């Protein structure tokens, strides 16, 4: 995908991988709407992009809030004119600190599902139409290995991400005739606030840096049309192959 002048909505765009990825796409000429909860950090992320000559708008919203979705979708489309890609980067652990499922409150599971599954479903639904009528579009789900492995204490998060992966598969099947493509991307463990919240005592030297992951993530998105729609890809495996094939 050539990103020049493309309209992109990135949730979780003020922090971690979302923020780094926004920088990569802005550098490629994409026009961005960054979505996150905290106003200050959101403005900081946008200011960073604008300082380098990019276009970044900010919309403060919680994607887990049902009432926030149509306002978000409407405002994003008003600001960008057309949305060509949506990157669902916002994530919630649900239970923090992590804990066994048997100790997880229903509300914590519901929160993980609201932010990681139902919110992205609603937002895709609200942004899908013009992409489908134009016959092209890309929706990216940021996932995790917790969606395929039954890691103890990652239950609420892992369950929501497993649903998220499958959401991409079904969207892909239904939207194939309309040219809208879906990808689930597992970036691997990174040194982000989310990871620190989940694993406070992690050995940081073993974690990837979000900027470096974003660089490879963007290489993958440049070639998104070469990957089967609906697929779940592990960034660490696919990008070296793409780079070798170049």
């Amino acid at each position: 995908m050539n990103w020049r002048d493309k309209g992109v909505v990135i949730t979780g765009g003020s922090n971690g991988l979302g923020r780094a990825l926004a920088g990569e796409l802005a550098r490629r000429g994409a026009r961005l709407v960054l979505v996150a909860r905290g106003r200050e950090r959101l403005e900081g992320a946008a200011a960073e992009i604008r300082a380098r000559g990019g276009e970044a708008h900010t919309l403060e919203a919680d994607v887990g809030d049902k009432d926030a979705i149509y306002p978000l979708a409407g405002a994003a489309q008003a600001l960008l004119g057309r949305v060509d890609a949506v990157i669902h980067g916002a994530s919630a652990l649900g239970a923090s600190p992590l804990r066994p499922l048997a100790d997880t409150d229903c509300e914590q599971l519901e929160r993980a599902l609201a932010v990681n599954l139902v919110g992205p479903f609603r937002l895709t639904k609200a942004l899908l139409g013009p992409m489908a009528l134009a016959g092209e579009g890309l929706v990216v789900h940021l996932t995790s290995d917790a969606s395929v492995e039954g890691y103890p204490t990652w239950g609420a998060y892992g369950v929501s991400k497993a649903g998220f992966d499958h959401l991409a598969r079904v969207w892909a099947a239904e939207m194939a005739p309309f040219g809208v493509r879906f990808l689930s991307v597992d970036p691997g463990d990174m040194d982000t606030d989310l990871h620190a919240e989940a694993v406070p005592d992690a050995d940081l030297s073993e974690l990837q840096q979000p900027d470096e992951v974003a660089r490879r993530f963007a290489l993958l998105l440049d070639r998104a049309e070469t990957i089967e729609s609906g697929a779940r890809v592990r960034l660490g495996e696919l990008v070296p192959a793409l780079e070798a094939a170049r």
Partner: protein
Amino acid sequence: MIAAALPRDVARTARLLRVDPRAWAVRDVAIDALPAQFRPGDLVVVNDAATLPASFAVQVPDAAFEVRLAGPIAGGSAWAAVLFGTGDWRTRTEDRPAPPLVHAGTTLEFGEGLKAQVVRVSDLSPRLVRLEFDLGEDALWAKLYRLGRPVQYSHLARGLALWDAQTAFGGRPWSVETPSAARPLDWQALSALRARGVALASVTHAAGLSATGEPALDHALPLPERTEVPQATVEAVARTHARGGRVVAIGTSTARALEANALAHGRLVAACGVASLRIGPGYERRIVDGILTGMHEAGTSHAALLAAFAPRALLSLAWSHAEDEGYLGEEFGDVMLILGY
């Protein structure tokens, strides 16, 4: 005709009246047979404008009233708007008291610090004004969505949520009322059309207010509306007509967008502009061959537009049939497809 009083799943529960001007025929059709009314090679054009929650409780010193945005003028901060006196949608618009008089320079307080200045009062009515908001685009859109409620009328039994006012494919929020003829087109119907070999295309057209309660203003509706036809749609229309297919507009706003563009430029071109064309009986259509529309009563501007698609006598026949059969009117009501076989 009885109005549909509640939001409903129009795509699954509405009734469809097929009106065929060529055969002079009116026929009841199941709503799920809508895609089957089209032929491979036809083109369905929709209005992809999303609906802004465009009703606001507003204050000037000494008075509170309602402002309904009527449409974007350009960019994000300039809007046409109509003022309504105290009360809300539960009161019939024609029974609402007059709003306070405003002048160029009057500042309206929308709440949460959002202000707009009246920059012009229309000669048509002191209630029709041009507003200029005092915020940059990012913050303005967020505020409009936070403070606004969907525009609605007294035939409805409850207040609308924002999602009640959207179609399946809304994009830029230019409309202040839902382009409601699109309600039967859910993704199942769109997929069925696509599978049938019917092409899809879009325009973006700022569907405006359908009533104000003031005779002089209502007579002037629709007001000039912002409109955009993209290049892909220009090409799709040309391909359709070249192969003998029919171009079917979903809703009066789509018909207006296509016809106004073609009339202004001599042919359909990719352009963004303002549509002031009024389509009525005797209007010679250049682009649109058929239309899917709500049930519109004679005397409204929407009904006048339909007279460009079928003779009035046939439309009267269709209307009486629909009334006898208990069809429902208004934005969550039943629909009519005017298209020759």
